[in-house]
């Protein structure tokens, strides 16, 4: 445990510059995780779930189109010279998660589009053979989807922004868990309404587990923030309070509701629905809270000077 930075600052001025990322990027991180994980679940349902999972597979493939369509649009809109968006694919730089992510998003978008198009034609025109095409394209799409769920954490951690930089591992766990929880929750909503209640319950169980993992990962991240002295510099700020709410009640409340609905069986549909909606809302709140907390930590010299103490070298994590 270490405490706040109490040394001198330069007139209290920022030592770092905050990222220029705001709500559009938070929304992208959220939708990318939701879509990527949905594609992964759909592919697993397709390969291992048999007939009962068919509806879930179809809806998962539609959900993946959300990230495919909105993701690039949000990112390009966030550029300050958007007409040069194609320069993102000019080089591949493995030291830059933003470069890696551009390729992940491109792969995900292309393969998810093929998957969804094949599914659509198979459903509408009865060309059943196309389901094989959908399956073949969905495998690389779901591998890219897994990357899409977590690379955004690497993107934030691989900066000098204190709140993000001190917990690279925990942040990736939080984003992975939240992505999977939101995807399972969204698919469970569809399944309860139009599909197979047994698949819905299994999705609920998955969401329940993912929310608990998210809660644990958030607790780990708080440990990282405290140990490095960054937490002390942010305590009481609005982003910090939002993050606490999203990571605390935002996971425990829906997890409890999912648990209750699993115990109640067929009578638990309403609990499951509330849990799903809460999960979806808290996932977005989490992403935006972390975005705001990061930017605020870059503005506060007490946070950056605390992080940049020799005792936090070279491994800032336990």
């Amino acid at each position, binding site marked *: 445990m270490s405490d706040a930075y109490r040394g001198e600052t330069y007139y209290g001025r920022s030592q770092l510059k905050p990222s220029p990322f705001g709500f559009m990027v938070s929304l992208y991180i959220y939708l990318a995780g939701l879509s990527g994980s949905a594609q992964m679940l759909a592919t697993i349902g397709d390969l291992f779930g048999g007939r009962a999972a068919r509806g879930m597979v179809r809806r998962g493939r539609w959900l993946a189109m959300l990230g495919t369509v909105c993701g690039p649009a949000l990112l390009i809109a966030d550029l300050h010279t958007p007409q040069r968006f194609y320069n993102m694919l000019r080089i591949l730089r493995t030291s830059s998660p933003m470069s*890696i992510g551009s390729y992940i998003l491109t792969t995900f978008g292309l393969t998810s589009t093929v998957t969804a198009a094949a599914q659509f034609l198979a459903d509408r025109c009865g060309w059943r053979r196309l389901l094989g095409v959908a399956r073949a394209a969905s495998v690389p799409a779901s591998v890219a989807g897994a990357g899409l769920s977590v690379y955004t954490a690497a993107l934030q951690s691989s900066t000098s922004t204190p709140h993000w930089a001190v917990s*690279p591992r925990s942040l990736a766990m939080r984003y992975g868990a939240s992505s999977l929880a939101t995807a399972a929750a969204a698919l469970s909503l569809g399944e309860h309404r139009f599909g197979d209640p047994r698949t819905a319950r299994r999705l609920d169980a998955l969401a329940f587990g993912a929310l608990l993992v998210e809660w644990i990962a958030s607790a780990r991240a708080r440990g990282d923030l405290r140990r490095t002295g960054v937490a002390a510099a942010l305590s009481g700020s609005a982003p910090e309070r939002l993050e606490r709410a999203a990571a605390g009640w935002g996971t425990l409340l829906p997890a409890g509701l999912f648990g209750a609905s699993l115990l109640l069986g067929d009578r638990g549909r309403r609990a499951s629905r509330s849990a799903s909606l809460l999960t979806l809302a808290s996932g977005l709140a989490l992403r935006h809270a972390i975005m705001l907390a990061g930017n605020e930590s870059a503005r506060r010299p007490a946070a950056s000077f605390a992080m940049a103490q020799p005792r936090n070298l070279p491994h800032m994590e336990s």
Partner: protein
Amino acid sequence: MQVHARARDYPQSQFGGVLPHEAELTAGVRIQPGRSYGFFTDTTRCIGCKACEVACKEWNNLPADNVGLTGMSYDNTGALSANTWRHVAFVEKIAGPGGGPAEMPPYQSQWLMMSDLCKHCHNPPCLEACPTGALFKTEFDTVVVQQDICNGCGYCVPACPFGVVELSETDGKAHKCTLCYDRLKGGLEPACAKSCPTDSIQFGEIADLQSRAAERVEQLHGLGVASAYLYGAPGSPGATGDLGHLNAFFLLTDAPEVYNLPRAPTRASNRVRPSLATGLATMAGFALAAIALLGRRA
């Protein structure tokens, strides 16, 4: 600094054009591609005249950021920005109640001034974050943003551990000190160093500057300034966390934080692997759980 022997070749006071290898005359160094160049900023020599700030703005055609008073000593510039690539920090060390100190140790003991800039890191986090390749290492071992490639994603901004590079609202691109890339190509000393009247800013080859700086620290210690140390030279504060040395490094006499510098900055890209690996392992775990749960064919 000694006058270069070539100075005799140019007795006139006006020239028709740029002299070949002019930096040899002004900084005692011939600028050649493939070598490492940078600045040694000796804060004990800084008098806070801001000639460097002005020379930088003039040469690079940079607009003013804010015209007003900050109330922070003589620092009305505030910070480095997209339009401000040199910034002179002022710290007045005022004694507590009972008046000022009776005795003043030499060399900026009560009033610190430091001309800050992009550190041109050996392993630059801004460059390592740049997804377009707009940021690159030049043939002079300096770090420059190519304005015709930058698409204004802004990822270099939070990547920099020194809070240097910034997006411009005017043109939507990232901007920072280029270490006068254009002047170096023409054999000229960078504008700030050339304008510095006290040689607080010294331009030269890195190895040269580093040994010159070490000597200066020795000299100051001998003069009783025990607090003098280097920031950004190999093995010193600033050159930590796998950043390597800084091509623009400093001689300081107080804690780094006093000058708004981080004591132990780190290389951001070292966090890519642990983060991605943990994330992908998490997803693999969830995939197995999903196979177990959804795989039971109903």
